[in-house]
């Protein structure tokens, strides 16, 4: 069965600093990888996804993630964070055959001025 490990439970950063949220998944022949974001008192929203093709994927609000098959990683990065990026971020994986996502335990990103 698939599993996901988010290596940091909390990441505090200052505004305009770069950030990396780390995610590793268990190995499989092929996987779909996702990052979801949850703002306070809301449901989860898709941030970006990797299905196939280019290993670097980007979101509309400046986040990017790179699929690294050899390291079974899918780390999320942003070169300059804003206060509004404060949220909980979840990495998720599914295999190609199934549709149910398996989530990591989440990383709380706290951006302060």
């Amino acid at each position: 069965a698939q599993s996901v490990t988010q290596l940091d439970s909390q990441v505090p950063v200052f505004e305009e600093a770069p950030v990396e949220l780390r995610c590793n998944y268990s190995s499989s022949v092929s996987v779909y990888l996702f990052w979801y974001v949850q703002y306070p008192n809301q449901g989860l929203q898709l941030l970006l996804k990797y299905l196939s093709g280019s290993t670097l994927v980007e979101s509309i609000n400046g986040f990017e993630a790179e699929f690294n098959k050899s390291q079974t990683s899918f780390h999320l990065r942003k070169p300059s964070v804003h206060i509004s990026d404060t949220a909980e971020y979840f990495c998720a994986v599914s295999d190609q055959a199934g549709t149910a996502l398996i989530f990591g335990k989440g990383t709380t990103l706290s951006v302060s001025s």
Partner: protein
Amino acid sequence: DAGITQSPRHKVTETGTPVTLRCHQTENHRYMYWYRQDPGHGLRLIHYSYGVKDTDKGEVSDGYSVSRSKTEDFLLTLESATSSQTSVYFCAISLEDRAGELFFGEGSRLTVL
């Protein structure tokens, strides 16, 4: 907007009582899911459904049952609620042509005293 409505949004109940949470969708999507979210555990899959009367267990299904008699409704039942089932419950749907991408409802906060 994937047209997902969860009810009730908040519920307080006592140990040993039955509880049913409802997830309603308006767009006839085939796949529906119930997750629970707990601090330090992220989201964990309880049950999912891939069509009317077709359901399957997730990783934390003990103590929960589901039913899907109509495409638009996916019910989660706690036959005899326990304090360990205090949680926030999220319903989600996925689109068949967007593999693995989930759309979430706003959540139902359940407190079992």
